[in-house]
């Protein structure tokens, strides 16, 4: 709380100090702006060492100041007292913050110099929000509910516009609003701009509420797609108002309806066209991976502006661009680029949203625009609310006749309550032409009041309402495996029955589309490499491995950074960061969108079994002996390593096109080896039942490990019968090249069959491995057992990077191999086999 207060004060002071000279500068020196040089030359009497060049930087400076202030506002809003934030939606708080800021600016200068101008809003603030929404749109959900969404968007919006406009006009005629210079057409125009549900506000409020996904997609999809209707209605009525009443006849009305078709479909197809362009572009950008992420934003923005230029629906255009391109762009681009796009998209969208709400607040503090007409405003509020409810229930009733899963009453209540108006309505109101519509200020005022009402009041009450009505919430956890299995089974069953009945149902369309898409569209738009990597099994494999890795690291970190030493459970290594590049090279270039990763395998992940079965006690049993002997050597080499290495540790390399996190392959592989070894260790110990006492509570997990180990298909660990120790060992695999004092043993390294002269990485003088400090403090405990970690893969078709990674590395081993270890090694080696997929 204190920090936020501090921030607020800081900002206030900052603004006041800045705003005053800014305003002075703005208002005073209009001529000088054009000729700064002249001014300088005129008054020059001596050499100025430092000059205050405000005019040079004025515009960008103001922009950046406001962006900065918006960021600070968001920060302080987030840092507010938890009680406040749990009640108020963030958007509401930002508007209130905007009030405060507007007040400050107003106080400094008796005019609101920083308004939310429609061009700024429509061209610079809105597109990225829509692009973000559409890029992350859950396509399957969207398209399966598309019918309902379209009904709400088209007919719902028309209904809202017509009814609100007509009712207001009726009340005006009845004299409830006093004297206004306004006619039916203007009422209808006002109705059309106030009718639109706003995507920004919907996202902002629903994001905090977490309703079930069908409900969310209905409201959200409606808010996105209704722009088509809004633009048409607005333009049509605007033109009608300009034409004047008498000249409107059937032809004009017909043209209006026709324009809807053109605008909506034109905008959509334009968006799809740009999506195709974008997909083709990303298909060819293999060599400029550093900037390919930018293409997404540029082409998306182009789609928006082109549609705007052609007076088509810009929001629809950018929406469909995002929706259609996401799959191909994600497949074609490098994984790093995909991550970049995602993060940048979120950044821009969040920033824009903050600025929009902030400015919505700031623009309110302006005496020029406020015209208060009680009747108009209150009636608008009332009608907007009521007709939304009526419209929603009406259309849902019609839809439920055709839907398989009907929309429940409670969902309908939330849907009608969630019809929030936002900045789009304000933007459209501000765009009105004052000459044609004399009551523009009244409309702006009303729009602002409606926006505040919906965002703040309805935003506040949305969460309690949802809880009170017991709306079905979004599933908090992933479905259990059995649920997923059953869902899949039922899908198949239903599809089969549909085929038997000869009925062309949803499934038929979906399957037909999928087949068409797979054969033709993907061929065109996806890189051939990406298409190959879409092999189903392979992508699952990749996903699973990555999930394992991430679990592994987070578990390791959870256990504490020394876990690697104590229990060999996990290496405190940022697995993904280090291996990301490695993965990219060795693994095919497929995108794993972890956010859409649906497999809920946390229950069964390898690491969960790992962590439960690591017996730290057993470690010590074996480890202690070694430890004492090796401690000295360790210490010596530790020092040697770090004393001499610390200065050379960082290799700086500046490059515009390349930034690599850790490209030292040897180091990467060594750390990798350790971790894999430790994992293998744990499995081994679990299998041998080394420490049963520790696992009383996790007994079942141990058994799972057992089973896991016996018939594991995909993970690179050992598979097979536990007891068969009779395998003939290929002794070439085990070479005793350990020399005491040669360095920190890294027993994991196998002797390389091809090039035994590979020197130990840590002995290499120039660039060698600098194993993590923590890892060095303690040796991994049973090097012998883990010898067999590197690939015994003979098969060349392995794509498992973990295995391929360490082919070239050498193995060091302890001299004091216990016989049992040796035997275990034997059986490991003999029975190791990774089944092919």
């Amino acid at each position, binding site marked *: 709380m204190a920090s936020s207060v501090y921030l607020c004060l800081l900002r206030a002071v900052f603004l006041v100090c800045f705003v005053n000279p800014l305003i002075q500068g703005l208002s005073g020196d209009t001529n000088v702006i054009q000729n700064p040089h002249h001014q300088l030359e005129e008054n020059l009497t001596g050499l100025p060492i430092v000059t205050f060049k405000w005019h040079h930087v004025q515009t960008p400076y103001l922009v950046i100041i406001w962006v900065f202030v918006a960021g600070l506002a968001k920060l302080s809003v987030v840092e507010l007292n938890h009680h406040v934030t749990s009640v108020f939606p963030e958007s509401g708080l930002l508007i209130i913050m905007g009030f405060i800021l507007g007040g400050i600016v107003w106080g400094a200068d008796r005019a609101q110099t920083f308004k939310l101008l429609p061009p700024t809003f429509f061209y610079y603030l809105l597109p990225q929000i829509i692009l973000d929404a559409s890029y992350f749109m859950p396509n399957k959900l969207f398209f399966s509910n598309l019918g309902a969404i379209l009904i709400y968007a088209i007919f719902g919006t028309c209904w809202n516009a017509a009814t609100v406009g007509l009712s207001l006009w009726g009340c005006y005629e009845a004299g409830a609003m006093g004297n206004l210079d306004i006619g039916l057409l203007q009422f209808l125009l006002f109705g059309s701009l106030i009718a639109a549900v706003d995507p920004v506000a919907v996202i902002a409020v629903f994001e905090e509420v977490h309703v079930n996904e069908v409900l969310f997609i209905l409201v959200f999809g409606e808010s996105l797609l209704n722009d088509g209707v809004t633009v048409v209605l607005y333009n049509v009525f605007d033109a009608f108002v300009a034409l004047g009443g008498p000249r409107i006849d059937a032809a004009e009305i017909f043209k209006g309806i026709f324009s809807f078709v053109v605008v909506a479909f034109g905008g959509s197809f334009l968006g799809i066209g740009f999506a195709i362009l974008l997909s083709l572009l990303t298909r060819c950008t293999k060599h400029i991976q550093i900037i390919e992420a930018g293409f997404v934003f540029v082409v998306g923005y182009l789609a928006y502006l082109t549609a705007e230029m052609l007076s088509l629906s810009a929001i629809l255009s950018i929406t469909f661009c995002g929706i259609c391109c996401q799959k191909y762009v994600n497949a074609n681009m490098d994984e790093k680029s995909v991550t970049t796009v995602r993060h940048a998209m979120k950044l821009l969208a969040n920033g824009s949203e903050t600025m929009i709400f902030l400015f919505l607040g700031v623009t309110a503090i302006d005496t020029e625009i406020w015209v208060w007409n009680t009747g108009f405003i209150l009636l608008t509020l009332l009608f907007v609310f009521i007709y939304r409810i009526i419209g929603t229930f009406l259309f849902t009733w019609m839809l439920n006749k055709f839907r*398989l899963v009907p929309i429940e009453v409670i969902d309908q209540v939330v849907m009608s309550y969630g019809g929030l108006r936002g900045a789009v309505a304000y933007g459209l109101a501000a765009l009105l032409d004052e000459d044609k519509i004399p009551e523009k200020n009244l409309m702006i005022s009303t729009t602002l009041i409606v926006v505040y009402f919906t965002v703040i009041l309805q935003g506040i009450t949305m969460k309690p309402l949802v809880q009170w009505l017991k709306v079905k919430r979004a599933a908090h956890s992933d479905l259990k495996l059995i649920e*997923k299995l059953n869902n*899949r089974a039922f899908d*198949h069953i239903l599809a089969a*029955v549909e*085929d*038997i*009945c000869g009925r062309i149902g949803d499934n038929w369309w979906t399957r037909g589309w999928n087949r068409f898409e797979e054969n033709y569209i993907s061929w065109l738009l996806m890189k051939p490499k990406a298409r190959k990597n879409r092999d189903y099994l392979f992508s699952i494999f990749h996903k699973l491995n990555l999930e394992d890795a991430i679990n592994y690291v987070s578990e390791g970190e959870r256990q504490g950074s020394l876990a690697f030493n104590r229990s060999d459970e996990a290496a405190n290594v940022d697995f993904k960061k280090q291996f990301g590049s490695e993965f990219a090279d060795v693994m095919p270039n497929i995108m794993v969108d972890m956010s859409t990763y649906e497999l809920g395998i946390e229950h069964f992940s390898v690491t969960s079994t790992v962590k439960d079965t690591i017996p730290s006690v057993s470690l010590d049993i074996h480890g202690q002996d070694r430890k004492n002997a090796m401690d000295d050597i360790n210490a010596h080499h530790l020092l040697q390593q770090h004393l001499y290495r610390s200065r050379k540790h960082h290799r700086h390399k500046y490059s515009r096109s390349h930034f690599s996190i850790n490209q030292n392959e040897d180091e990467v592989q060594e750390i990798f080896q350790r971790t894999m070894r430790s994992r293998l260790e744990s499995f081994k110990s679990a299998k041998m039942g080394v420490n049963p006492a520790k696992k009383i509570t996790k007994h079942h997990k141990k058994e799972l490990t057992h089973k896991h180990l016996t018939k*594991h*298909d995909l993970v690179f660990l050992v598979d097979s019968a536990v007891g068969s120790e009779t395998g003939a060992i290929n002794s070439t695999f085990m070479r005793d090249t350990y020399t005491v004092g040669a360095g920190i043993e890294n027993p994991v390294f196998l002797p390389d069959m091809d090039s035994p002269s590979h020197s130990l990485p840590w002995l290499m003088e120039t660039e060698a491995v600098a194993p993590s400090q923590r890892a060095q403090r303690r040796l991994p405990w049973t090097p012998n057992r883990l010898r067999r970690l590197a690939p015994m893969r003979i098969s060349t078709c392995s794509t498992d990077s973990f295995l391929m990674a360490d082919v070239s590395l050498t193995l060091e081993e302890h001299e004091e191999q216990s016989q049992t270890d040796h035997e275990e090694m034997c059986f490991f080696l003999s029975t190791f086999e990774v089944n092919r997929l």
Partner: protein
Amino acid sequence: MGSRASSLLREEDIEEIKKQTGFSHSQITRLYSRFHSLDKGENGALSREDFQRIPELAINPLGDRIINAFFPEGEDQVNFRGFMRTLAHFRPVEDNEKNKDPTSGEPLNSRTNKLFFAFQLYDLDRDDKISRDELLQVLEKVDVEQKMSIRFLH
């Protein structure tokens, strides 16, 4: 086809099927024409081969089980009644109570009956129990993805 098909289906048959399964008149006629088009041998009953001739069913992982579900225990032919009876399981659930008379038992598309039908699809050997192997078989057929994640089940 239309007229020939409906001429083989008498009015009282339709009524009976309607009462038993709950399909509407038009639905029954339509399904009868479908039944007829599937019935290549024209003997008024479908055999397993007739079902297997449907192309999409061949690539459906659970296709053969669905087909089996149509044939009652031990028989190889299913007549129209049986066909409709099985299909009736897939009608939407009606939660209204007004048509319920206590003597007719639960309608075929009640939730319990649907569950029972689905259970039978899993239970291949029809011993009223789903064994671990049977579950695994379904898993294998249906969802390779999940199978790969259940590394412990084997």
